[in-house]
C-alpha cells in the first residue's frame, strides 16, 4: 500500500514537471526546427536578450507587478482592518464581495473593467492596467490579512486604546506589525498574480504598454520556436526562485 502511494505521488509530480523540464532542457538545444537533440547552445538566450521589444515587455511586467503588489497590499490591508475592527454600513456586503471577486473568472473581471474604462473614456495603457491588476489582487491580500487579524488577541488593541492611542496610531504601531507577515505574503501573492496574468491584461492594456505574457502569447501563436523555449525556461526558473525566497522569508518572519 505504501509503495502504491509513493508511486502515485511520483507519477503526479512527473506529470506536473515533465513539460517544464523538457522546456528547460530544450532551450539549450542547438536544433532550430525539430526536437532532436543537436548539441548545447546558448544562442537562443542571446537572441532573447537582444530582442528589445521583449526586454521592454519584461521590464514593464516587473514594474507593473511591483506597483500593483504594493498598492494592493496597502489597500488590501486597510480593507481587512476596516472589516475586522470597525462597524460600518455595507460591511457584510463588502466582505462577501471580496470572496466573490476572488472566485470570479479572469475573463469576467477583464471585460467588466474594459467596459468601465470605455464608459469613463479612459485611454487603455499603463494606468488602466495598473487599476485592473490592483482590482485582481486586492481580494487576495484582504482575505489573507483578514484571516491573520482574526487570530489576534483583542486585548492588545484595547490596552493601546486605554493608553490613549488614536485609530491611526493603533493601526500603525499595533495592528500593522502584527499582521506584517500576512501583508508580505499578500505582496508576493499579488506580485505573482500580476506577472502571470494573461486574460485581464489582454483586455485592459493598450498599445503603449505591452506586458510579457501578451508578448509570449503572440510568439506562442507562431508555433514552436527555440527563443520561446528559452523565454519559458527563464520564467520557470524565476518562479521557482521566487517561491523559494518567499518561503524562506515567511519562515523567518513567523
Amino acid at each position, binding site marked *: 500500500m505504501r509503495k502504491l502511494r509513493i508511486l502515485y505521488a511520483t507519477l503526479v509530480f512527473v506529470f506536473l514537471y515533465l513539460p517544464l523540464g523538457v522546456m528547460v532542457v530544450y532551450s539549450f538545444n542547438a536544433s532550430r*526546427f525539430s526536437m532532436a537533440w543537436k548539441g548545447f547552445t546558448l544562442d537562443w538566450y542571446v537572441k532573447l536578450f537582444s530582442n528589445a521589444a521583449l526586454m*521592454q515587455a519584461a521590464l514593464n511586467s516587473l514594474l507593473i507587478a511591483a*506597483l500593483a503588489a504594493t498598492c494592493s497590499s496597502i489597500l488590501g490591508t486597510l480593507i481587512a482592518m476596516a472589516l475586522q475592527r470597525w462597524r460600518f454600513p455595507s460591511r457584510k456586503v463588502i466582505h462577501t464581495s471580496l470572496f466573490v471577486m476572488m472566485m470570479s473568472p479572469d475573463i469576467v473581471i477583464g471585460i467588466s473593467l474594459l467596459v468601465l474604462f470605455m464608459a469613463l473614456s479612459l485611454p487603455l495603457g499603463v494606468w488602466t492596467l495598473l487599476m485592473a491588476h490592483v482590482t485582481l489582487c486586492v481580494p487576495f491580500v484582504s482575505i489573507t490579512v483578514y484571516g491573520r487579524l482574526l487570530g489576534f488577541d483583542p486585548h492588545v488593541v484595547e490596552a493601546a486604546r486605554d493608553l490613549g492611542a488614536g485609530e491611526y496610531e493603533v493601526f500603525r504601531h499595533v495592528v500593522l506589525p502584527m499582521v506584517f507577515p500576512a501583508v508580505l505574503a499578500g505582496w508576493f501573492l499579488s506580485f505573482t498574480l500580476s506577472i502571470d496574468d494573461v486574460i485581464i491584461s489582454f483586455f485592459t492594456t493598450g498599445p*503603449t504598454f505591452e506586458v510579457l505574457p501578451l508578448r509570449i502569447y503572440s510568439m506562442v501563436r*507562431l*508555433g514552436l520556436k527555440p527563443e520561446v523555449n528559452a523565454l519559458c525556461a527563464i520564467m520557470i526558473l524565476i518562479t521557482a526562485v521566487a517561491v523559494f525566497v518567499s518561503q524562506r522569508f515567511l519562515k523567518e518572519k513567523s
Partner: protein
Amino acid sequence: MKRLVLTVLSLMLATQVLAASKELYVYNWSEYMPDSVLADFTKETGVKVIMSTYDSNEALYAKIRMVEAKGYDLIVPSTDFVARMHKEGLLMPLDKGKLTNLSNLDPKLMNQAFDPDNTYSVPYMWGSTAIAVNTKDPAAAAITSYADLWKPELKGKLLLPNDMRGVLGMGLKRLGYSLNETDPVKVAEACELLLPLMESVRVFDSDSPKQALLNNEVQAAVLWNGEAYIASGENPDIRYVYPAEGFSLWVDNLCIPKNAANVDNAHLFIDYLLRPEVAAFICQEMGYSSPNLAAQALLPEDVRDNAIVYPAPEDMALGEFETDLGPAVKAYEECWMRLKTR
C-alpha cells in the same frame, strides 16, 4: 516605502515622456515584416519601432475602434477595410509631400476605387490566398481545386485560415459566385456547402499556418502565398496550387490612424518601406508580391519567376480582389459563427 513608490512612479512618467518623441507604434499582421527592417530603420533614424500583431482585419478593426484610432501610428488593413475605416473616419490623410519614394509604386495598383488618389493608403504588399499541399501525401498531391478539399481522404489533414472571408470565399467560388457576393441567399448557400468541410479541418490558423504544414500536422492548407513561399523553401515537397474555381487576391495597405501621435515618424517609416532595396528585401524574405516596380527590378530571378510570389498570367486571370461588403457582412459573420461552432 513612500519614497520608493514615488520614485518608481516618477521614473515611469519620465520614461513615458522622454521616449515619446522617438517612437513608432506599428500594428501589423504577424510574420509580415522582418525584424531586421525595423532594426535597420531604427539604426538609421533613431526612431524606436514597437510592433504588435494581429491575425485578421476584423481584429485590427475592432482594436482601432476600441482605442478610438489612438495609440497606434501605422496599421496595415486590406483594401476592403481601408474603405470601411475611412468611411468611419478612422484614418488620417497621408501627407504626400513627405513620401518621396511614392513614384516607385506600380501605377496599376494605385488610384483604385476603394481609395481614389491614395489619400489614405499606400499599398504595402499584395498576394493571393490559395492551397499549399504536401506532395508526399497522395491525396494532397492530387488537389487542383477547392472541390478536392472536400474529399474524405483529406479528413483531419486540412488547415484553413482563421479568416471569415477566406473560408467563405472558398464556398462562394465553388458555387461559381463572386467572392464579394452580397446576396444573403447565395451566402447561405455557400455556408451549407462549407458545413461538412469543417469535419476535415484539423486547425484554423492565420498567425503562422506554415508551421502546421512543416510539422506534418496537416497535408493541405489554405493560406496566403507568402506562407507557402517560406514553407516550400524549408520543404521542397510543399507546392502552391491555384484552385481551378478561382481564388482571392488582396492588397494590404499602410495607413495612419486618425489620432496617431507620431505622425512624422509614421511618414518617415512609410517612405523607408517604399525604398526599392527595402521593398525588395521584404519581398524576398516574406514571399509576398511587392507593389514596388523599382523593387521588382532588384529581385533575383528565382523570386521574380516564382509562381508563388508572382502568379503566371493564366493564374492571375482566375484571381479576384476582395472588396468591402458593406452591410452584407452580417450574413458572412453569422455563417462564420455557425462554421466555427460545428
